[in-house]
């Protein structure tokens, strides 16, 4: 993945690591999955027609007043607690003032020097099982911005555009920004640590149920800060902030690229410019955006339209009680319960299957069946669709229900796969699909006896063989019955009936 040696200015990765210590910092923005926006009752659905989820508050019309969404504050506190943060007993929102049309108010309502959660940590497991503790600086509440569409110019980018079109559906959607402290000492594993941290955070947020955490849809976005210090000097270098990093793999690539680029600048005698850079997915490189020092005069001041948030100890403890089993606790428990090796556990984790299997087991399914569905049939479906396992439109509860229907004999394995196909196709819950597609096993002996008698009458020579003691010949009759019932009969029961009816 390293850049070609011929590219001027980039330094070979091994040499970067030999001469410099990378220092990471990661900011993650996550959109909460509340029903409504942070400060108004507008819906937050993804993909609606432009400017159809707006009101005077989120459009910043004169006289409109914001009111804080209680559910968003609860999610923020739960995220803070899960990240081992202290929850601030008192804090205000602030206005971040800037001129850019992605916020129609000309400011973003955010938290500045009084974030709701501070000083936490997240233990992050690397691919080989090593654990790195990432210190969390803060998590604060803010609102998302609108979406701009730049029209004209060759690239669709802002430079050269003739004008821009704004959709404010996203403006005001609750956003939590989670900021790490500086992460030193990662050496050659910096790119891997960055990816592992964002992965662990995504899994944590998913288990809390507070966000869709879809990096591809922008409901989770990572900005990667990186600087290089001369090896073992302890002297901090100038950092860059790379935005537009839209997948876990891109997090790793962006860090690696910035390491090789900054090393090139430094070894060339030049200073690294403190700036925002944009990650280019196609080339795996970063390009400069705006310069930081001129852009950061946001004139924050306390938001006069909102009163402070002062979570009581009781409220915080009540929310702590709602924290689910966290991913790493679940892994530890599941590993023991299912008797998995480190390697088996890691494979399930890397396939994104572990939490889904555990959730399916929590819905009452036996672990063996749950594992089998997620790592084979469903993994194939995810692969075919080119999506992650968790993005398949089927829930662990659906899978558990299908397993239950098989166990009770209402579905055969073959029918169960058809039911799952139906759920994936958006036909509803498993029971709906069974009903709509008429997939239930024919368990009514009367109907089966008729089918068996017909099959025996249709193949009198086979029937005679069975009567003569060649029991294995029954397979042909069972096959005919299964065909006649379109696979909806329990083959074992059919066989019993064939042997019974042949002498009737």
């Amino acid at each position, binding site marked *: 993945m390293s850049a070609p040696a011929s590219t001027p200015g980039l330094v070979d990765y091994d040499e970067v690591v030999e001469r410099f210590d990378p220092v990471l910092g990661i900011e993650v923005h996550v959109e909460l999955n*509340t*029903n*409504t926006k942070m400060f*108004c*009752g*507008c*819906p937050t659905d993804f993909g609606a*027609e*432009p*400017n*159809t*989820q*707006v*009101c005077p508050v*989120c*459009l910043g*019309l004169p006289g409109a007043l914001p*009111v*804080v*969404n*209680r*559910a*968003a*504050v609860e999610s923020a506190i739960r995220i803070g607690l899960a990240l081992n943060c202290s929850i601030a007993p*008192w804090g*205000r929102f602030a206005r971040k*003032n*800037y*001129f*850019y*049309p*992605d916020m*129609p108010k000309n400011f973003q309502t955010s938290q500045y020097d009084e974030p709701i959660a501070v000083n936490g940590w997240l233990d992050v497991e690397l691919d080989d099982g090593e654990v790195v503790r990432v210190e969390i600086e803060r998590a604060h509440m803010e609102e998302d*911005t609108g979406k*701009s*569409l*730049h*029209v004209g110019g060759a690239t669709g980018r*802002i*430079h050269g*555009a*003739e*004008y*821009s*079109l*704004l*959709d*404010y559906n996203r403006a005001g959607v609750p956003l939590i920004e989670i900021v790490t402290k500086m992460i030193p000492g990662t050496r050659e594993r910096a790119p891997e640590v960055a990816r592992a941290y964002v992965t662990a955070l995504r899994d944590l947020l998913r288990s809390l149920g507070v966000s869709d955490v879809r990096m591809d849809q922008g409901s989770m976005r990572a900005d990667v800060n990186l600087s290089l210090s001369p090896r073992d000097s302890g002297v901090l270098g100038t950092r860059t902030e790379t935005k537009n990093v839209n997948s876990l793999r891109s997090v790793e690539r962006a860090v690696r690229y910035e390491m090789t680029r900054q090393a090139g600048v430094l070894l060339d005698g030049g200073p690294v410019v403190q700036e925002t850079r944009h990650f280019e997915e196609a080339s795996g490189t970063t390009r400069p*955006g*705006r310069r930081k020092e001129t*852009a950061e*005069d946001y*004139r924050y001041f*306390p938001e*006069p339209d909102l*009163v*402070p*948030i*002062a*979570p009581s100890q009781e409220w915080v403890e009540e929310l702590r009680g709602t924290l689910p089993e966290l991913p790493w606790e679940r892994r530890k428990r599941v590993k023991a319960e299912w008797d998995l090796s480190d390697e088996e556990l890691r494979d399930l984790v890397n396939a994104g299957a572990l939490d889904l299997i555990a959730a399916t087991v929590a819905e009452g399914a036996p672990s063996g069946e749950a594992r089998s569905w997620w790592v084979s049939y469903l993994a194939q479906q995810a692969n075919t669709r080119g999506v992650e396992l968790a993005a398949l439109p089927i829930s662990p509860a659906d899978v558990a229900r299908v397993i239950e229907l098989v166990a009770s004999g209402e579905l055969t394995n073959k029918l169960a796969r058809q039911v799952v196909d139906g759920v994936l196709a958006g036909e509803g819950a498993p029971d709906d699909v069974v009903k709509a597609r008429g997939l239930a096993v024919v368990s009514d002996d009367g109907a089966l006896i008729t089918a068996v008698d017909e099959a025996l009458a249709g193949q009198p020579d086979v029937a005679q063989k069975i009567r003569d003691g060649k029991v294995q010949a029954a397979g042909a009759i069972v096959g005919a019955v299964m065909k006649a019932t379109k696979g909806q009969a329990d083959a074992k029961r059919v066989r019993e009936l064939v042997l019974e009816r042949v002498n009737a």
Partner: protein
Amino acid sequence: MSADSGAITRAEVAHLARLARLAVNDQELDVFADQLDVILGAVARVGEVAADDIPPTSHAVPLSNVFRPDERRAGLTQEQALSGAPAAEEGRFRVPQILGEEE
């Protein structure tokens, strides 16, 4: 830019004007620098009477934790939302070319 550091400079006014996207000429810089000085001087007097045990106030009403349930409320239609816009296209607000900054 603390109030007791004395006169606000023309350079500071020019900076504020740029941040606020206001076109201010040289003569106006002098006028506004003087006026802002008077305003800051008046506000600074609060510091003379407020003792250390009085916390800064950011809101006139002594309330906290005013929340709204997470329930949807009807907003504006696209047509209503765009009705006050100087220009619109494809259901979106149309704004002039954005220069300088990129987010």
